[in-house]
């Protein structure tokens, strides 16, 4: 479907954490296809514990997949020190809490220069640091280089973290909840920055969040994750305006300003990756399944029949109860 090679993709990726404390192995990522095209912003949406952060970490090479692979410009990622080092110039991670991501005893200059220094890029380092700071919206950069994290506001700290990522001139950034710890008025400014970087320097991004509004604000495509799998994917307009999967519908209905008459509250607790239900993993909490007639139940068999892993491109929802969906194409 896509014209170009994706800059970063996950292919049939699984990450299984070993058993701990008497529980079975945790299938944090349980078969995911996801691709980020050149100059594309993809939002990965899910609740805590759905495996979205593990997937993000696998995509930047911090977690080794149990099976499947991460591909960078179509080439499978290898986990030797040298290939990972080269990969870091291509893909950079931005973490949730900027206060924790910055070394309190390191000046802004050193925080931003650390990446290029590790990669031996000492020529023109000053210029590179200044350019990165200024791209991240810290202007003029001279006002910031000698400051320390505690002298900056939360929004400025996040800009420093972003500048540090930009200093290696990556092709993709993977941002894990980049605005979750920021104030409402600052949130929009950081999102504007990510959107602006795409428009100005063609930076691709995967933004991991629990916030559907964020996807509406900046993303081109969105993938909704539930218990280790992507359950619905497509363009932002398709997924957020015409959701197909009951989980996506429920997530949208509980937004405070959704305008939905009666929000679909899911009962039960957040799902447990050590005990993934058989069949459709969402069926124990699915309102659509609970309301299904006995014929529908026999036909759909959500409680027994497994769903295929969705393809990375196009628009799909992993649900047996959708009559006319694109599911059949997605195996």
């Amino acid at each position: 479907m896509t014209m170009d090679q994706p800059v970063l993709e996950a292919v049939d990726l699984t990450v299984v954490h070993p058993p701990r404390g008497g529980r079975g192995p945790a299938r944090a990522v349980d078969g995911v296809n996801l691709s980020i095209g050149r100059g594309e912003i993809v939002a990965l949406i899910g609740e805590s514990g759905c495996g979205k952060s593990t997937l993000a970490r696998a995509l930047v090479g911090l977690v080794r997949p149990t099976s499947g692979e991460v591909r960078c410009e179509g080439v499978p990622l290898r986990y030797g020190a040298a290939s990972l080092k080269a990969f870091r110039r291509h893909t950079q991670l931005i973490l949730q809490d900027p206060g924790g991501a910055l070394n309190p005893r390191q000046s802004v200059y050193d925080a931003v220069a650390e990446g290029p220094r590790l990669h031996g890029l000492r020529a023109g380092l000053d210029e590179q640091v200044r350019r990165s700071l200024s791209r991240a919206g810290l202007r003029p950069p001279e006002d910031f280089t000698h400051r320390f994290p505690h002298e900056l506001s939360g929004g400025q700290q996040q800009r420093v973290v972003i500048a540090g990522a930009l200093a290696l001139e990556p092709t993709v950034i993977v941002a894990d909840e980049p605005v979750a710890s920021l104030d409402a008025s600052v949130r929009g400014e950081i999102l504007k920055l990510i959107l602006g970087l795409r428009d100005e320097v063609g930076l691709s991004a995967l933004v991991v969040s629990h916030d559907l509004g964020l996807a509406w604000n900046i993303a081109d495509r969105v993938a909704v994750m539930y218990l280790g799998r992507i359950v619905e994917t497509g363009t932002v307009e398709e997924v957020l305006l015409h959701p197909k999967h009951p989980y996506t519908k429920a997530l949208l209905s509980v937004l405070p300003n959704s305008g939905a008459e009666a929000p679909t509250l899911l009962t039960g607790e957040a799902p447990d990756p050590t005990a993934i239900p058989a069949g459709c993993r969402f069926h124990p909490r699915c309102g659509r399944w609970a309301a299904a007639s006995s014929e529908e139940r026999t036909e759909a068999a959500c409680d027994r029949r497994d769903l295929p892993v969705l393809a990375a491109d196009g628009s799909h929802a992993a649900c047996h109860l959708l009559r006319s969906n694109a599911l059949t194409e997605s195996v």
Partner: protein
Amino acid sequence: MTLLQVRDLAVSYRDGSGTAPAVRGVSLDLDTGQTLGVAGESGSGKTSMALSLLRLLPPGARTSGQVLFEGEDLLSTGWSRMRAVRWSAASVVFQGAMNALNPVQPVGEQICEPIMLHDRVGAKAARTRALQLLDSVGIPASRFGAYPHEFSGGQRQRVMIAMALACRPKLVIADEPTTALDVMVQAQVLQLFADLVREEGIAVIMISHDLAVLAQMCDRLAVMYAGRLVELGPSGQLIGAPRHPYTAALSRAFPVIGDPASRRAPSGLPGDPPSQARLGAGCSFAPRCPVALDACREREMELWTCGDGRQAACLRVLPEYSAPQGESS
């Protein structure tokens, strides 16, 4: 009937060189059974304001003004009277139930404690009431003896709500009750809380940074910026037609999905909230305000009435400064 009257409430904290004002003259009224949402960003003073109502601030904080609860000034009353008011007349749902519950005491006992102290009933009656409360928040009686760490975040927050309602208070102050929770759990907890307070006719002051959540829960909203109220009014009107530019910015920060205006157009507010130590003359919001006038930097702001039950601390609501939309100087 007016349950709570706050008059010119101010809170300041001592810091290294002097005092840093956190709340600078807040006045508001709350009727019996009414729900008020207080919105603002971190550092706006909303938590200091709410906790000072029940004198829950640390010793370093200095509070002045009046907090009249059913006509009695809580800021000047004696400590024994204050202890009687807490829990039985007014209670608090703190943010982060994780830290607010005692980790080494079963939750059932923690709920019984205020009931036995304030209702002066025996252990058995308290237990009956506690089980009833747990049931009302959807936690089975079998979990009475469980410890906080055995519950999920959402369940812990529901235990906190059960505790806050234990002595049938007239007022509940909820400080960011759902901040650390997932969207789905947040919706569950909010709906539960809304149903319980409505049934019992309890007045609520709910604090959050999320204007949309507050608008859904509360009859009226108050927006705080740099320790002051900048806008006050009925929820629907305040969100639909904000009169203060800060309220407008806050409400735009959380987009409505499907609204073409916010698609690929995140909305923020340049600049950072002012530090308490560096508050100049005039409107504290003027340095970040997209429609500030010269007069904004000189004239002292107050909450001017701008419509039925609405007030805003913005010169633009005054006839002599009101300008056509979009014009700025």
